């Protein structure tokens, strides 16, 4: 008797090229088998009827700021993991710009320990490229890798020195790991929102898209030289999408991700001076949003990643120019992706799910994001037709710096299973589970 059998769901497993109604049997924390509906023999300890739902590999988020250690008032690994599973995510990648930064094996081990204690989402550490994230000396990438790091980034800023970046690419390549870059020329980072008519009208300093593209162009030259795997985080501009498209056409080992806010919001949202719209890279123009959506649709942008960046209430109750950059979305990200991509008619469910499962798994080179027999039983069940309203006050995240409060979305994860354990189940107002 297997532990769990999920029946009659539309199983979308892009890694296996599957999009059919199937039953999924889970046993001892692994996918036992995926069979045509009703064909499996015997019973399971828990039967879950997923008729009308999508059943897919557990969703993977490549870009989460857990803030622990150092800023537990904003978020902890436990609360980030809770937000993750509530949002249908079985794996999140923890960013290293903590205090102290995650630039050695002890820091990596700490994050893994805290994640194990929370016992919710898998938390995969992303280590710093350079010591302290200062962009000068390479951090101990080898030892971090042995401790469990899956990639490296100095997220928050880009690596300013071309020499350091080149060496980092060469070094990471030898470990088979990728460098994830926050593309932004440091000297041009002199504003607080997108450069353009809105910034001028508001009297705020602008951050032009060219600052992102300048570093991206430079890095693509270095990738050509070194052949190292390179991942562009939170792509924000049409120009960058085009550069990535060309790089892929040339066969360079480049991948990219886009965040929900860059797929849904423009700089016009900043007109109210609400710091809940202040992000880095900033919200840009409608043309940029369109180009990013198109980029996801044609595969130029491989993955969807939240860039979940929690801040405390006091931090965001400051003047726009003084408030820290960042917005959260793990609790509602899936519905946002659905709105931007499926709701707009640009993508179908398999494309969106691929960008959240098979492709992020490939970026970090982990055997996740798949329902192949023997895979870890990380499964997300989604109700694609559920209409719901985002209520930031009931988020599992500790933070509330979210621009989507009150948004009406369609499509919501209703159950999150990790290693064969149900870690999240959505309940209706009446207290009934949304799953049988």
């Amino acid at each position, binding site marked *: 008797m297997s532990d769990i059998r999920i029946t009659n769901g539309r199983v979308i497993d892009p890694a296996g090229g599957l999009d059919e109604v199937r039953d999924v049997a889970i046993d001892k924390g692994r996918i036992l088998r995926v069979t045509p509906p009703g064909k499996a023999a015997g019973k399971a300890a828990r039967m879950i009827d997923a008729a009308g739902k999508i059943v897919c590999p557990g969703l993977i988020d490549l870009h989460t700021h857990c803030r622990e250690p150092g800023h537990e008032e904003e978020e902890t690994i436990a609360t980030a993991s809770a937000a993750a599973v509530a949002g249908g995510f079985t794996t999140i990648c923890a960013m290293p710009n903590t205090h102290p930064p995650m630039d050695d094996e002890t820091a990596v081990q700490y994050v893994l320990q805290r994640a194990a204690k929370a016992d919710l989402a898998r938390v995969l550490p992303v280590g710093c490229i350079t010591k302290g994230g200062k962009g000068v000396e390479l951090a101990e990438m080898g030892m971090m890798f042995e401790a469990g790091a899956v990639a490296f980034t100095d997220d928050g800023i880009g690596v300013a020195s071309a020499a350091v970046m080149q060496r980092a690419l060469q070094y990471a390549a030898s470990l088979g790991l990728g460098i994830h870059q926050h593309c932004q020329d440091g000297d041009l980072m002199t504003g607080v929102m997108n*450069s*353009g*008519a809105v910034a001028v*009208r*508001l*009297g705020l300093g602008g951050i032009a898209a060219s600052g992102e593209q300048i570093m991206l162009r430079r890095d693509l030259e270095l990738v050509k030289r070194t052949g190292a795997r390179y991942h562009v985080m939170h792509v924000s501009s049409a120009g960058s999408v085009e550069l990535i498209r060309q790089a892929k056409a040339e066969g360079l080992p480049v991948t990219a991700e886009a965040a929900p806010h860059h797929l849904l919001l423009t700089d016009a949202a900043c007109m109210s*001076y609400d710091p809940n719209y202040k992000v880095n890279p900033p919200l840009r123009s409608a043309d940029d949003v369109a180009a990013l959506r198109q980029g996801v649709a044609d595969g130029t942008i491989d993955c969807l990643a939240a860039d979940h960046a929690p801040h405390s209430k006091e931090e965001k109750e*400051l*003047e726009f*120019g003084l408030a820290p950059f960042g917005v959260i979305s793990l609790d509602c990200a899936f519905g946002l992706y659905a709105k931007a991509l499926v709701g707009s008619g640009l993508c179908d469910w398999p494309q969106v799910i691929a960008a959240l499962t098979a492709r992020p798994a490939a970026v970090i080179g982990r055997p996740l994001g798949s329902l192949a027999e023997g895979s870890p039983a990380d499964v997300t069940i989604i109700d694609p037709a559920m209409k719901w309203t985002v209520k930031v006050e009931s988020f599992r995240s500790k933070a509330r710096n979210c621009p989507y409060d009150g948004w009406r979305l369609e499509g919501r994860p209703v159950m999150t299973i990790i290693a064969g354990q149900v870690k999240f189940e959505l309940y209706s107002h009446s207290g009934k589970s949304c799953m049988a």
Partner: protein
Amino acid sequence: MAKKASTSSGRATEGGRKPDTSSSGPSAGLPPKPASRRPSAKSVEPVRQAAEPAPLRPAGRASEGFVWRRKDLLGLDELSAEEILHILDTAESFREVSTRSIKKVPALRGKVVALLFFEDSTRTRMSFELAASRMSADTILFTAKGSSVVKGETTLDTVRNIEAMGVDIFVVRHSEPGAPHMLARKVRGSIVNAGDGSHEHPTQALLDMFTMRQRLGRIKGLKVAVVGDIAHSRVARSNILGLTKLGAEVIVVGPPTMVPSAIRPMGCQISHDLDEVLPQVDVVNMLRIQFERFGSNLFPSVREYHRLYGMDAERLKRCRKDVLIMHPGPINRGVELTSEVADGPSSCILQQVANGLAVRMAVLYLVSQGTE
């Protein structure tokens, strides 16, 4: 809402208004204004005997039919042309108060106006202080230097604490754009923006427009040049917004490093050639150059700035005969304009300052009436 006869666009007409004989509004109990509101360029207001004014009624002027609703003045961006005109008309009534021997009206008696100057200012501060006191309000002053801000208190906490003492109107100057907007969301009293970083300085633009209307009789159809560091100027932005709403044309002039091309959507044209623009305009508004900016490669030197963008007697000859030269102050003699121009007949700099008082009295009065 009954409107008086107006243009087909529904906007209240400018100028030529009937004298206010109604018994409500700020003019209640005052001698009626002269029938014609079109003074010549150099008219002198007759000194009236100071009659004790009757208490002002809170309603908007009945002859207008227009009722002011806003409890805050955060900028000109969100105002309609009608609202801007209403402020200017209200200021007109208050201008007379400054000519009396007892320069007071009781409109804000018993109200507390807190002047919160998180950024340095002497002139705007004094102007608001005097305006509030002419309205019989109690004023309290907060400046950032040597205050709790130095100890790390946030703007919001500072204002909440002061509000707890019982304040009706906050006049706020701040170096961060949007600070007044943030406060307006959180604080119950009225917020009047006295300048928020590079964003807006609404009362400055209002007094500029008031002065233009006073000297030239109209705003609609005027061509106005705004000259200087447009990128960092709140005076420029508020002027562009206010003037374009009232049907004037604005050309911003300055070096390319100081004039962002993305300013065009705000409704103005751009030129980098002051000499070419001068013969076309009715008003030249010179902005103050901030010397601290010269280190940041925006412009090579003060001398070069004056040569290319400064007003002097030679340049004045290129202007129209009745051109108005304006400046928000404080002026840097020899930089934006020479003494000859600053002190000459085309300059209305001192009139601007005098009008500033009336405009600020009007603003304080109106926001104290607003409920939204």
